[in-house]
């Protein structure tokens, strides 16, 4: 099958920023030229639209196996393609945990049968994510794991963390770390600051993230491990990462759209859809995160897509589940808040949502002849209002509900196949 994408503005954040046609044949990119005319190809008119390499999310929760009421591989990947993603890396906090080859194979096989996009499982650092014994990392690598994480269960034991880094580094595995000192975060449910003081919710101090991040930097330096910091949220964390990079530590970092665009002010009123870990921080933190993104201290924008049921959130704030369902609107959130406001360039956004994560996950990706045809066509001029009831994800938990955003994903193409098409009625079409 041949497919030509015509007249789009092709941007990959690296080599391309121009109007071009793209020819796709047998699932691969066959040509990128000023003009491609073929009689025997299906063509997509992308005039006035942008064509990006498909987005890659390094931090998704697909919830299957074990928590299918919150999300499944099918619904999660459907949501992903609706957001323009062609690959997602899913976190191991499933039940059972992704700590053995069988669960990895299970997820891969379901994704192949029912998934809309490519799925890369992330292995657990410790067996059962219990923070006690290191997982069988080599076996996990053999079945395709490229990164390890105990997700929201930080390794509190520094000796164990050093062993994880030392052992995992033999196999070049990326260490994705949720930096939180549980003793400091305590029973906190939101950022510790003026709003928590006002409304009487227990606060999570920024030091809870920074103390653990500093420890992990020190251990990465001594072991030589590849450290990837999940969802950075504070000003001082950005500075710690900046210094570690200058110091030669093999460190990368990601930030979520909600931590980049929202502040703790949104928690006033007890909307449980604002409850996430790390929590929404202050304007000062948000400014520092944007600065970090601009100067390359923060490498990646990852969603931390965390779908929950309505019942998980229809409770008092203190006992509501942590997490935001965000994969479907991640691009337009960052585009609207940052690119449209002139804070970062569109090239940079594409780079941080597509090219850089592909490198960290060791994927062949981007607009090169012969690569898999994974791409996204977006209409940046089109506006829409977020309606969680239209989410493909089972998780309707979004603090952006009702907000107007720019940048509608028109097509998502995976391996040359159209996996999502917007038919003009925002996100109602199934392909």
């Amino acid at each position, binding site marked *: 099958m041949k497919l030509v994408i015509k007249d789009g503005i092709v941007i990959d954040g690296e080599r391309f920023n121009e109007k071009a046609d793209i020819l796709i044949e047998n699932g691969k990119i066959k040509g990128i030229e000023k003009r491609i005319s073929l009689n025997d190809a299906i063509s997509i008119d992308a005039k006035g639209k942008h064509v990006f390499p498909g987005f890659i999310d390094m931090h998704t929760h697909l919830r299957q196996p074990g928590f299918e009421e919150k999300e499944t591989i099918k619904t999660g990947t459907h949501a992903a393609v609706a957001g323009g993603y062609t690959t997602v890396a899913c976190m191991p906090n499933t039940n059972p945990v992704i700590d053995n080859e069988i669960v990895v194979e299970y997820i891969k096989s379901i994704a192949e049968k029912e998934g809309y996009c490519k799925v890369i499982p992330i292995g657990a650092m410790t067996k059962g994510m219990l923070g006690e014994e290191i997982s069988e990392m080599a076996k996990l690598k053999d079945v395709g794991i490229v990164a390890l994480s105990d997700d929201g269960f930080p390794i509190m034991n520094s000796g164990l963390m050093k062993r994880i880094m030392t052992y995992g580094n033999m196999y070049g595995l990326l260490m994705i770390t949720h930096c939180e000192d549980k003793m400091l975060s305590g029973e906190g449910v939101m950022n510790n600051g003026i709003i928590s003081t006002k409304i*009487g919710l227990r606060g999570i101090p920024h030091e809870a993230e920074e103390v653990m991040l500093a420890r992990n930097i020190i251990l990465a330096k001594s072991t030589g491990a590849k450290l990837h910091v999940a969802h950075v949220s504070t000003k001082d964390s950005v500075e710690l990462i900046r210094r570690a990079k200058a110091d030669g530590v093999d460190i990368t970092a990601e930030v979520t759209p909600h931590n980049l665009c929202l502040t703790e002010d949104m928690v006033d009123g007890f909307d449980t859809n604002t409850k996430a870990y790390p929590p929404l921080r202050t304007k000062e933190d948000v400014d520092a995160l944007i600065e970090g993104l601009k100067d390359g201290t923060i490498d990646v924008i990852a969603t931390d897509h965390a779908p929950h049921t309505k*019942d998980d959130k229809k409770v*008092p*704030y203190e*006992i509501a589940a942590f997490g935001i369902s965000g994969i479907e609107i991640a691009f337009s959130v960052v585009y609207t808040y940052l690119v449209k406001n002139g804070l970062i360039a569109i090239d940079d956004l594409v780079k941080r949502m597509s090219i850089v994560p592909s490198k960290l996950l060791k994927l062949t990706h981007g607009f090169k002849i012969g690569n898999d045809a994974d791409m996204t066509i977006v209409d940046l001029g089109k506006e829409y209002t977020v309606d969680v009831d239209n989410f493909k994800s089972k998780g309707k938990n979004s603090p952006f509900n009702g907000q107007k955003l720019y940048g509608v994903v028109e097509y998502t193409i995976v391996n040359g196949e159209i996996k999502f098409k917007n038919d003009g009625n925002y996100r109602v079409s199934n392909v």
Partner: protein
Amino acid sequence: MIGKDVLGIREMSKEDLLEILDTAGEMKKILVGNKDSDILRGKTVVTIFFEPSTRTRLSFEMAAKYLGAHFGNIETKTSSVVKGESLIDTVRTIEKMKADVIVVRHNMSGAPHLMAKYLDASVINAGDGLNEHPTQALLDLMTIREKKGFFDGLKVVIVGDIVHSRVARSNIWGLQKLGAEVRLVGPATLLPKTFEKLGAKVYYDIDKAVDGVDVVMGLRIQLERQKNGLFPSKDEFSKYFGITEERMGLAKKDAILMHPGPINRNVELTSKAANATYSVIEEQVTNGVAVRMALLKILCERRKSNEISY
């Protein structure tokens, strides 16, 4: 204007506060008179307490009954909410029994706000987590007004475990709206500097904090905070942050002493101070009933005249 619910002092205007205090003054006449009124005849008030509190619950019960309302009470444990019966399901059941006003106490901040969102009945917050205790603050304000006659420029110091106190938060909002100066004092582990951003003055030396004030308000300290390492011992707390007769001597001559009760005697207050003539602690309890009568009256009248939609 006061809406369907009474969730916190922070949302109220100065006019709202004064309207409630004026109505509470009228209600006090009924309370100290024959305690017999039919203002709430045909109305149903239900208290639902997810956290034990005999005093506040009884105060609401008395207020409802003195005004002729039907009254019901449920005491439950928060764990049942966690186990499956959701908070919203629980209160909806009560509403379906035709309650007009549901008074709720919950150990989690924002729980009454969540209920109010899903209920047609009026919700009164009788204390939520660390957030607010509006009826306590209103009775404190009523007592201060009775004793001092004004709020403008009045200096009030609140002493003790501020960070965990919903009483302190509600009083900070209320006193400032009415023009008083609020000082806060307590150990730094129980009084973060961020409270300055709420417009209050923060002190760590009680003698300086009490100096020249019109009102000294003690707070109940939870002794388990000591086990959590927030202060070293109750002896050290009482020595450095306890309200004593000597310390009351640093306040204005006509200063009054308040406490929401129940008191940990000789921890937050010495017995001598609590029993002294400047102590208005018992009057606070009486005013608590008057304030609750006032809120029930205002909410039920609003409901009757359809000033609120539900």
